[in-house]
């Protein structure tokens, strides 16, 4: 049964994957700095985290060629 008061939108989550991109899920919109929407066709997108993608801001798998390493969780402060 459909609840008319139910909020259909789902919160956006951003997940850094180990040695890989940020996956973004939920009701997100990607805009450039000027406010123009960057069209995305899929429900889950991958944003470049290594900086070397050839279609930034989206991931194209290049992190595997450049040996990008990063944990999924927060990196510790130096000395922690």
């Amino acid at each position: 049964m459909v609840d008319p008061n139910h909020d259909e939108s789902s919160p956006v989550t951003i997940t850094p994957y180990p040695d890989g991109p940020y996956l973004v899920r939920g009701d997100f919109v990607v805009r450039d700095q000027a406010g123009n929407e960057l069209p995305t066709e899929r429900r889950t997108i991958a944003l470049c985290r290594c900086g070397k993608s050839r279609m930034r801001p989206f991931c194209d798998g290049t992190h595997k060629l450049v040996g990008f390493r990063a944990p999924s969780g927060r990196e510790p402060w130096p000395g922690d």
Partner: protein
Amino acid sequence: MARRLIDLPSPRGCLSELLFAALEGPPDEGLEAPGAIDSGDPIADEDLQLALYVAYEIHYTGIRGVDEAWEWTPSLLAFRAELERPFEAAMAELVEPASEQELASVGAALQAITAEDAGPPLSRYLETQGTLEQMLEHVVHRSAYQLKEADPHSWVIPRLSPRPKAALLEVQTDEYGGGSAERMHSVLFAKTMEALGLDPAYGAYLERMPAVTLATVNLMTGLGLQRRRRGASVGHLAAFEMTSSIPNRRYGNALRRLGCDREATHFYDEHVEADAVHENIAAWDLAGGLAAEEPEVAADILFGARALLQIEARWATHLMDSWERGETSLREPAAVPA
């Protein structure tokens, strides 16, 4: 898009001859198990791989003139099991067992295994030097799977617990176009074939496909159909996705270099972006999630990944070697009987 329906191909030896002759008759009559098959090299055995491909195809689609009731007919299943045995043994021989360390983190192990992929540089070759004819051959080979892209792994869905199941669905939903038939990857591949002047009908090039090409599909179908191989099927999908985005960019570049338009490259360009998403989900949420919930299948997950890399390398070697000799990598069209 029209309904998938293939014709029975010409047999390539006594196994396929026996099988196809029986399939033209009523189910469960006239098909006797062949007994132990002695195949020197099951992966390159034309007769064995074609018979297996057709035996599996009955689960996917209709075959003109073949009664659909054959699908679960015991004599066909027994016949198929004899075909699977030598192929499974050959794959097991090619795949090294997983180490304890790999089993402790399946996601990281998949990253390491796929990064080491030592197959021949097929995509790099096509990107920089391949001819249009070679690129078209590549598309024809790939149509054996790509026109039913994602289907072999969909059989695993009901066999998973919620977390890995949700991950698999996240990938498969995208493969199937997110609710749009037009965006379905198998449909995009058919459009690429059309743009390149190839016949996009399902099964149109079956006669031209060599055993090693059929073996790449038979591997994933065989794993997908058996619940006990759910780990291997998941590992196969993960490795497939993890080795896809970069080669697909190269195939798109190859077509652009050869003067093809966006209609032709769209399938490949779409896969660069799609598989950059899928590979993370497949490695960590699907494969890692399955290993966490069912540690007993972790070794088989890594088997599936390594099996995919081994068979792809074998297939790519066949293409590169054929071209090196100045020959086609496809089977020559059958001679017209006099």
